[in-house]
């Protein structure tokens, strides 16, 4: 006989152990000693919150009523886990790369951060989970009452309600304490997960202990149990194929869609490799959990034919005088109930807070303060209040329905409700064409059909739907009878509801997706979700170096808050074995810092911010795009909250334009850098190769001098290129100072021609001029202008293909403010029409005769100079040969006359 005090004492002691374990795990996690906390074993055990009190106690009752059907509830998840490569693996990767916080967040993020979908899924989850929480409270109080009754204390209904209240309050306390200790965008709770893993072990051991006792203690081994099964009424069970398959499907769907399962499976996952282990270990756990269900049911039926089969796990050991075993069983049931409630409350509070409370708060307040410290405070408070509210809701539900049998049926009904998320979820991760409209249509239709065909009828005509309504349909329309839509009679109500709701849900989802057009953000997210393994295959790395610790600290303080930032830097310094506040900027540290920042401002922004400071590595095009996308998301989000649709339209356009400009710039920059690299490396290659040959010695004298002269030429080519590049960059950046002076056009042309014809080794070019027309006095920078002329003349020297190359320079005064035209026309073949557009671009060397010298920067420099001088240079396509026209501004020409 267990004393009542002992019972309460054991309960409290067990709870104290849970608190201690959670606390210790939390401490270790903060000191980053998480090795064994992050083991696949803990992950596998944490998944077992799938097995609630409903399955711990209820499976035996289920077996008594429906034979082997109870295993379907475990077979569904088994198939999902065995098939981890398909879905779970992908969900976990998406959860990590997209920093998904809940199933509502998954759906919302996938469909372009749609808050509507977030709200729909959240509401669905709350509706589907609240009765479930009530069910757990009921099981704890019932089992408590059973043990108390055995001791002789009969608990009246008020006492039971008090017990439930105490349990609910205790759970709320635990959940708030360990579920909202700190705000971390990973939403991981090592303390909670460890406590739950412990509870998972307790419930497995408890059930196995009862099972072993029954098989070898009561019966005389497996053969005896088999014989007894054959003799019991369980043997008369006839499986219903449709129901069997439907239940397996339903359990599989629920396993993926239940908010608490998503929490432990995806959000709390610390390492993707754990999924691989859990893929067989968790089915193993389920296997063990169900192994002794039938034996317990069979022996229970024989020993306690009048008893409640739902409590055989507890009453059977009691009836046979095994009180310690009963106590263990009680703790197992207690563990099942509490762990489910804790995780469900955390998952739901995250959803409620992120998708309902925060948007409302943001709309009411100043949306500018998205990253500031007080938001964190608000989030924390809203989480805590949500947890309290969810448990209160569960308790109230228990109060109003408690004690009746209605709760027992709720398990499968809740499964069917949450399974409505499945099409949107699977469609979202496998089909890029899935859209927000389709997802919303499917979810809402599926949810409605579920409520109409299953949830409301489950009250048996006492809630909203009357019995007449159920029997004859609305307004007597038989085709709309909730449990026989379109006259589909005679099938199991659950199968009927699941069939219709999932079918219509999927159909609406597909049709809605096919006929709607996704917004850009949706398409982007769609691609990132569906192709998550391509997008996340190469983690971006940092090559540290130039970054200044102080700059990083200043930036981090702005984002994380000064205390957190300093602590972070100090910890890193300590890890590196340094004293003081500044850690060395190692690649590891940069990655840690980036992760921390990312949890506040988003991954792309964090990456871009750090690369700004680190300097060395340029911001890549992907980074710029990602920043623009993130900005777009934030802007879009806050703006939509304010319902300023016009503003949104305008901002979206601006962002799109900015994005396009960034893209174009970045592509140009990339191409430019790659060209420079090529132009610099090519002469360097020859120089290096021939220097090495010379250094190795053993070359003949003739070779030596030939190679030396190649080195000499290539070095000159390199110098020329660098000069040009410097010149161009000075001109482009506007840092050039022009030396304005009075000058005569004739003198400048004279100088240019002299400079070019005196160059050694240049081909002979006959320059034709008209000195009289050239004598025009004006104000300009004579050196720069002659640089332009020299460039044009050398071009003719290099590229004129005529046998007797000839260049005509003619000067004309255009009237009416047209300025002075200086035309350079040679007798060569001209420039191909398709190339005319690009000749003034950098590196646009048309022929491949690179030996002609220069890197194709000459005309680009000319254009820059002429722009600075207030004139222009253009190509004249109508002329016979290659013709350039330099226009000098009229104003200066007149001013000097």
């Amino acid at each position: 006989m267990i004393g009542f005090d002992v019972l309460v004492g054991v309960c409290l002691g067990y709870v104290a152990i849970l608190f201690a374990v959670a606390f210790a795990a939390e401490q270790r996690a903060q000191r980053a000693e998480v090795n064994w906390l992050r083991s696949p074993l803990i992950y596998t055990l944490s998944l077992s919150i799938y097995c609630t009190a409903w399955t711990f106690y209820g499976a035996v009752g289920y077996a008594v009523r429906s034979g082997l059907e109870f295993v379907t509830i475990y077979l569904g998840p088994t198939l999902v886990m065995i098939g981890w490569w398909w879905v779970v693996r992908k969900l976990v990767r998406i959860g990590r790369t997209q920093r998904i916080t809940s199933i509502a967040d998954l759906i919302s993020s996938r469909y372009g951060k749609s808050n509507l979908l977030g709200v729909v899924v959240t509401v669905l989850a709350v509706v589907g989970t609240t009765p479930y929480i009530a069910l757990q409270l009921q099981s704890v109080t019932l089992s408590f009452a059973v043990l108390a009754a055995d001791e002789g204390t009969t608990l009246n209904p008020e006492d039971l309600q008090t017990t439930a209240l105490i349990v609910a309050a205790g759970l709320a306390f635990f959940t708030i304490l360990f579920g909202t200790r700190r705000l971390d965008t990973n939403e991981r709770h090592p303390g909670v997960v460890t406590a739950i893993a412990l509870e998972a072990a307790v419930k497995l051991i408890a059930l196995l202990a009862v099972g072993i006792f029954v098989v070898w203690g009561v019966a005389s081994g497996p053969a005896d149990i088999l014989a007894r099964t054959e003799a019991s009424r369980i043997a008369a069970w006839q499986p219903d194929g449709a129901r069997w398959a439907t239940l397996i499907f339903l359990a599989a769907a629920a396993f993926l869609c239940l908010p608490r399962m998503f929490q432990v499976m995806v959000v709390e996952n610390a390492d993707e490799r754990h999924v691989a282990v859990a893929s067989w270990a968790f089915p193993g756990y389920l296997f063990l959990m169900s192994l002794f269900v039938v034996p317990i049911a069979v022996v229970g039926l024989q020993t306690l034919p009048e008893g409640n089969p739902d409590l055989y796990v507890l009453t059977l050991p009691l009836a046979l005088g095994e009180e310690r075993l009963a106590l263990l069983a009680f703790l197992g049931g207690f563990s099942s109930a509490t762990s489910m409630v804790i995780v469900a409350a955390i998952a739901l509070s995250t959803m409620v807070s992120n998708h309902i409370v925060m948007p409302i708060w943001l709309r009411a307040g100043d949306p500018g303060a998205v990253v500031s410290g007080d938001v964190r405070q608000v989030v924390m408070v809203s989480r805590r209040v949500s947890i309290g509210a969810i448990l209160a809701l569960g308790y109230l539900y228990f109060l109003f329905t408690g004690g009746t049998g209605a709760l027992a049926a709720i398990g499968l009904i809740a499964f069917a409700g949450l399974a409505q998320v499945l099409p949107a979820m699977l469609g979202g991760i496998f089909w890029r064409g899935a859209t927000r409209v389709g997802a919303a249509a499917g979810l809402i239709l599926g949810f409605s059909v579920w409520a109409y065909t299953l949830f409301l009828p489950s009250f048996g005509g006492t809630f909203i739907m009357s019995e007449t309504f159920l029997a004859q349909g609305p307004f007597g329309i038989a085709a709309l009878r909730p449990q026989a839509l379109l006259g589909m009679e005679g099938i199991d109500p659950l199968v009927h509801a699941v069939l219709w709701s999932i079918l219509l849900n999927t159909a609406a989802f597909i049709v809605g997706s096919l006929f709607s057009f996704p917004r850009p953000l949706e398409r982007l997210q769609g691609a990132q979700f569906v192709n998550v393994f391509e997008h996340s295959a190469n983690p971006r790395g940092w090559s540290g170096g130039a970054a200044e610790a102080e700059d990083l600290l200043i930036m981090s303080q702005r984002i994380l808050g000064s205390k957190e930032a300093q602590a972070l830097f100090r910890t890193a310094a300590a890890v590196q074995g340094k004293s003081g506040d500044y850690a060395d900027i190692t690649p590891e540290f940069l990655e840690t810092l980036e992760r921390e920042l990312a949890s506040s401002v988003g991954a792309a922004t964090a990456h871009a911010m750090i690369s700004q400071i680190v300097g060395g590595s340029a911001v890549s095009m992907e980074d710029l795009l990602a920043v623009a996308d993130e900005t777009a998301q934030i802007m879009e989000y806050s703006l939509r909250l304010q319902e300023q649709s016009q503003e949104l339209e305008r901002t979206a356009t601006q962002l799109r334009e900015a994005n396009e400009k960034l893209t174009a710039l970045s592509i140009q920059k990339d191409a430019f850098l790659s060209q420079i690299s090529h132009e610099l490396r090519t002469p360097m290659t020859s120089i290096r190769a021939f220097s090495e040959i010379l250094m190795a010695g053993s070359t003949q004298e003739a070779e030596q001098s030939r190679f030396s002269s190649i080195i000499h030429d290539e070095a000159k080519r390199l110098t020329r290129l660098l000069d040009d590049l410097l010149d161009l960059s000075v001109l482009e950046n506007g840092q050039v100072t022009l030396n304005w002076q009075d000058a005569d056009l004739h003198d400048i042309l004279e100088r240019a021609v002299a400079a070019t014809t005196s160059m050694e080794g240049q081909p002979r070019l006959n320059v034709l001029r008209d000195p009289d027309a050239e004598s025009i006095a004006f104000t300009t920078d004579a050196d720069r202008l002659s640089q332009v002329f020299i460039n044009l003349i050398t071009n003719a020297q290099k590229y004129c293909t005529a046998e007797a190359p000839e260049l005509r320079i003619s000067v004309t005064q255009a009237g009416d403010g047209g300025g002075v035209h200086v035309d350079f026309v040679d007798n060569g073949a001209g420039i191909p029409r398709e190339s005319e557009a690009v000749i003034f671009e950098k590196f646009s060397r048309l022929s491949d005769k690179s030996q002609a010298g220069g890197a194709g920067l000459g005309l680009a420099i000319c254009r820059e100079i002429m722009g600075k001088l207030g004139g222009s240079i253009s190509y004249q396509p109508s002329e016979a040969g290659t013709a350039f026209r330099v226009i000098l501004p009229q104003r200066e020409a007149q001013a000097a006359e």
Partner: protein
Amino acid sequence: MAKRVLLIEDEPNIIQAISFILSRDGWTVDTHADGATAVAEVERRAPDVVILDVMLPNRSGFDILQDLRAAEATEALPVLMLTARGQKRDRELAERYGASRFMTKPFSNAEVLDTVRALTEA
């Protein structure tokens, strides 16, 4: 019999340098400077190793490499890819299209020599 290298490159000085280094080591070096006819040239000469520049007149080295890998006769021919652009993307493309080795200019003579030797010994 001396093994033969086909050098597909358009910079005259680099052609001179590589030819000199390899000839001194006992290789027969053929050169070719045009991208458009490079594949035909490889088929005609059937060399033991090809050294292939990326930036060629008329046709990119990557296109040439793809063609070589698609043809049965040159599917497994050792190809040393050279580029002066020095970008990660070039290396990735070279790997994807099946270059046996990849080198960024400027290279050291010993490296070229070692690589060409290694490619023919394997």
